[in-house]
Structures are given as structure tokens and as C-alpha cells.
């Protein structure tokens, strides 16, 4: 996983509540058993003029020249709600997004971000509106900075907004850690737990199978 420390980049506003993962990556765009090949399907229903087509809708924010190369997405409340499909984060990451700033996230989506090196930043709606307004006059020049080390977002004017992120999750993002490797360090502890638990709840470990 690619480590994340500080990123200064173009920020694109898509400030709508309840942006669901079907909107982020429609079912019809998930065509292979793979975590890649999804960027083209990102926001397909909004980004292209027709369903299944690939002619860009010029009004959609990511198709506007001034937001080209955006790596930070400004979103609305309950971002990433709906389906648990991790493809939503894979598509965002493959497209180039490395941080998403929203007033709240769906909990499955939030975890999926952490597991894929995308920083989910929670700021209140007022702060996000202010950031969008500061960016809008010239997005390519008025970039935002997401500083994970200091846990804050810097606007183009240098004004800062602190955000919170769990220490362990922050460390995983900063160092690009493989979380399974990390947990496997505790494998003996887990095995001991199961040995003990087998005595307390044997029915969990020996499902009686009728065959």
C-alpha cells in the first residue's frame, strides 16, 4: 500500500449528501474478479452522457478542465453509503484520488478507504463549503493540502482545519502497512483465544453438520 504523509493537490467539489457506492461505481462497470480496471467506470452514471457510453458530460465536475488531475474529493454527508463494494474505493484510487473530505462517511466505506491508502477526512459541512469556495476561483492554482502527519487540512489561503483519525489507522496510512501482516503478529494470541473459547462455546467451533 502506498504510504501517505502530505498531499497538495487539486480538489474537486461533489458536495451532495448520500453519494452511494452504486453512483461511485455502478454494478455494470464491475466486470472482472479484480481490484483494477475500474477508473473508467468511476461515477459512470454522472460522468458520461449516456448509460454504457463513454462520451463525457461536460457539466460533470471531473470533466471540467479546471479540475483536471484532482486528487482530493470534497463530498457531502454520509459519503459512500449503500453497497459494501470495495470497488468504489479501488475506482476512486485508480482514478487518482488519495483523500476524500466529507462531513461523514458510511462505516464500511471508511474502512475500505483506510485499507487502500485513501485518507477519509471528516470536516464539518461549513468547513467543506469554505474550502470549496476558496478553491473555486482557480482550482488548478488554489490547491488544498491534506497533512496526515499533523492531521489537518490547509486551504489555499493557508488557513488550517484539524481533523481526527484513529492513531492506528493513521499509522497504517502513513506507513502503508499491510494490516493482515500486522494482525498475524498476534496469531499465537488469537490461537490461544480460540483454544479457550472452544471450551466455553464449543458449538461455534464444531458445527454439527447433517449429511
Amino acid at each position, binding site marked *: 500500500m502506498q504510504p501517505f504523509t502530505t498531499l497538495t493537490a487539486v480538489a474537486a467539489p461533489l458536495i451532495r449528501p448520500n453519494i452511494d457506492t452504486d453512483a461511485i461505481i*455502478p454494478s455494470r462497470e464491475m466486470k472482472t474478479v479484480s481490484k483494477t480496471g475500474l477508473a473508467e467506470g468511476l461515477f459512470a452514471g454522472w460522468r458520461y452522457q449516456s448509460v454504457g457510453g463513454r462520451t463525457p458530460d461536460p457539466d460533470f465536475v471531473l470533466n471540467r478542465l479546471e479540475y483536471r488531475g484532482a486528487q482530493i474529493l470534497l463530498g457531502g454527508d*454520509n459519503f459512500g453509503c*449503500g453497497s*459494501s463494494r470495495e470497488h468504489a474505493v479501488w475506482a476512486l484510487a485508480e482514478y487518482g484520488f488519495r483523500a476524500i473530505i466529507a462531513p461523514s462517511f458510511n*462505516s464500511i466505506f471508511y474502512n475500505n478507504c483506510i*485499507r487502500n491508502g485513501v485518507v477519509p477526512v471528516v470536516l464539518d459541512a461549513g468547513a467543506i463549503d469554505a474550502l470549496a469556495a476558496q478553491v473555486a476561483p482557480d482550482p488548478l492554482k488554489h490547491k488544498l493540502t491534506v497533512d496526515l502527519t499533523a492531521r489537518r487540512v490547509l486551504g489555499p489561503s493557508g488557513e488550517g482545519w484539524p481533523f481526527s483519525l484513529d492513531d492506528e489507522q493513521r499509522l497504517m496510512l502513513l506507513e502503508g502497512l499491510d494490516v493482515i501482516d500486522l*494482525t498475524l503478529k498476534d496469531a499465537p*494470541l488469537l490461537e490461544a483465544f*480460540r483454544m479457550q473459547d472452544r471450551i466455553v462455546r464449543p*458449538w461455534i467451533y464444531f458445527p454439527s453438520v447433517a449429511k
Partner: protein
Amino acid sequence: MSPRTLFDKIWDQHLVLQRGEAAALIAIDRVFLHERTGSIALKSLRARGRPVVGPERVFCTMDHIVDTFAGRSDETKMPGGRAFIEETREAAREAGLTLFDLGDPRQGIVHVVSPEQGVVLPGATLICPDSHTSTQGAFGALAWGVGSSEAEHALATGALRVAKPKTMRVRIDGRLARGVTAKDLALALIARHGSAGGKGAVVEYAGEGVRSLDLAGRLTLCNMAAEFSVFSAIIAPDDLVFDYLQGRPYAPKGVDWAAALAAWRELVSDEGAMFDREVVFDAAEVSPMITWGASPQHAVAIDGTVPDPMLLPAETRPAAERALQYMDLKPGMALEGLKIDAAFIGSCTNSRIEDLRRAASVLRGRKVAAGIKAICVPGSGPVKQQAEAEGLDAVFKAAGFEWREPGCSMCFFAGGESFGLRERVVSSTNRNFESRQGPETRSHLASPETVAASAVAGALADVRKIMS
């Protein structure tokens, strides 16, 4: 010990290690996979050469990619679908998991199959890379949806790193009126508190309005909690649950059953247990509900009208305006009588035998209106078999419904199938998101009986009017 919530009890029992304030290592008792997201978890696991911990506790079904036509095979209309099915099958076999494959009489939608086979148990932790996993909390399990990477983590380690969620109790007083179901209750709750209303919490549904629901209704209520943005939902298990589970294939047997039952009876929130948030809701006030917009929170009573966005809270206004445009509706329009193109009964929300019985009771002796495409997809092989034994399939078919094989089907593009461009659909599913059921399809969510009544009328209909 201070009074604990039902959730606290399950959490404490599964806590392997507390890391700092937020992150805990939680033991996972059951993993359920399906071929769309589980396939990727298994593939990734295999690519790194990591074995599955406790494969006898891992289950897998085919529901998201398979189609639902009679005589189906691995070939689906979905581009690349065959690979999902074949790769899942091969990986499941290699890892030694229990697979409910195509052609297996037990195959069906994950959240229908799991209770049916006794995979989900009270007090257990269960994860599945599927957002509607909260459904299974209706059996008193802590069951939650995760991404594919988290599923892989649980397979490789038998545990997950989880930040302890907050708790919320939703107390439902009173009972539902005739013609009103758990689906309507769920929609009414989400309409009042918003689709982010349960934000990241474990929601315990309690009170007379929950106790009085049958198991299918409880599963529907917990299913729709996913549209409430919860971490999970849970209901204290009672004799309804225990009686249902006894004798199920993967449920405990003999001395294990007795020990399990004794433990399960402790699975209640203690008197005086503190929740981070509590809300109260009156079941008696709920009417049959219908959605008018593109979010499950956009729901009103069937005899209500399309709201005026200008009268809604300011922060919800732009989304409501956008939804009305998408749905081709105007403020003040009546929902009842709105012409539809199609009707769908199925999904992990409403495809159990009780759902089909209620829908069939509306359809018996009636016909679907001319020009309406109507489809019924039973949730699992056993549901389909039971329905056929009761002659429900004949009722659906005589009314003009297609009678399909089990799977997720038209809830989204499962099997590569969807409704047509801008078609208006009344659906017993869980999501009315833009283009969820087809290109620019206009979905109206409702209970199975409202779907049935609407199919007959050719327009959104109040089921109460034909029940008397």
C-alpha cells in the same frame, strides 16, 4: 458488573485484544461470502499464499452474479460473469469452504440462506462482504458488512481490527396495523431520521413493535438498517429464534444445543444498560409506505403526496429537487395511482416464504395489469420449494408474474439483467438509488403486498383497499 447492552455482551465475549482507545481485535465466528466480493477476497488470499483459519466456519453462496432464469448455467448475461462464478467455485473448493453452489438445493441469497441453514447463531460474530449483513442481527448475532479486504483479513486471521461502534436503541412501541409490514416500519423510520440516522452505530431494535414481528419481519427490519447507515442492527433473540434454529443443519446439536440455549437466553440488554442514543417510534402510526425519490429516506405513506422540496429542511433540498427531476415527479402529486411499468418481488429484504405468502394472498384470483412486467424471485432454494409445495408459484404465474430461480436478480444488475431505460418500477428491494435497477430506472420501494397490489392496478396502489 455494571449493566451491559446486548451488543456489549457479544463484544466483550469476542474481544481478543484492546489496542489503544479505538481499535480492538475481535474474534470472528462465521464468515459468509458471495461470488461478487468474496471471489476477490479469496483470490487475493490465494495470491499471497495465506491459508484460511477455520475453513469449516466459512460459507459461500452464489447470488450476486448468477442469473435467475430456469435452466441457468455458469453463463450469465453479465459481461465477465462466468469468471466470477468459476473462480469462486474453484477458490472455495481449494480453501475447503462450504459452498452453496448453482444446482445445490440450498443455494440462494446470502442473508436468506444463512438463517435457513443455521449458520448465523445468537451471540456469534458474523461478517460478510455485503452491506446488508445487518439482516442477520435479527437472530441476536453481531453481524456486519465489510469490504473485500476486511473479508480477506477475517479469513486469514479469524479476527478483525474494529473501532468499537456507538450504540443506539430504537424502541418500537405498539403494533403494526393490518396491511402494514416491517418494510413499511423500516421506511417510516428512515424517512423520519434520515438515511444517515443510525450513523455508524449498532442499533438494537426493541419494544412491543419488534417482539410482535415474525422472524421474516425482523430480518426485513434489520436488513433495511443498512439504509440507515448503521454499523449493524441487532434484536435480542427469543423462543421464535431458538425454535427456528433447532434442528437446522449447522445449528448446535445434542449437549451443545442445551449449552448454547442456556447461553443464548442471557443475550438481552440488562435493565439500566446505557445506550449512546435512544429513539422511540410508534408502530401503530405507520401506514403502507412508498418511496418517491432516489434515497430510502424519500418515503411517504402511500396515500400521501410528493413533498415540496421548499418545505423540506434546507440541507436536504438540493437532493430532493434532483430526485424529483430524476423520478419525473412534481411536488403535490399523489403517489397512489401513479402508473408503473414493472413490479419486482425479491431480494434479501423481502423474498422469504412469509413475504411470498402475503404477496400471493393479494394476487390470488387477480391479474397483473396489461403491459406490466412482473417478476418474483424467491430468496433461496428452500423458499422456492416451500412456495411450490403450497401452490404459491401457481398463484404468481396465474396472475402474470414470472417465477424465477433464487438470486439477487433485479435488485441491481445481478445476472446482467435490469429494467429498461427510465422504466418506473415498484419493488420490494432496499435501494432506490439512481440507476440501481437499470439505466435511469425509477424505483419505488414498498412491501411485497404493496408491490403485488400495484402490479394488479398497473399503478402504485394502497394494499389496504383490496384486503377487506
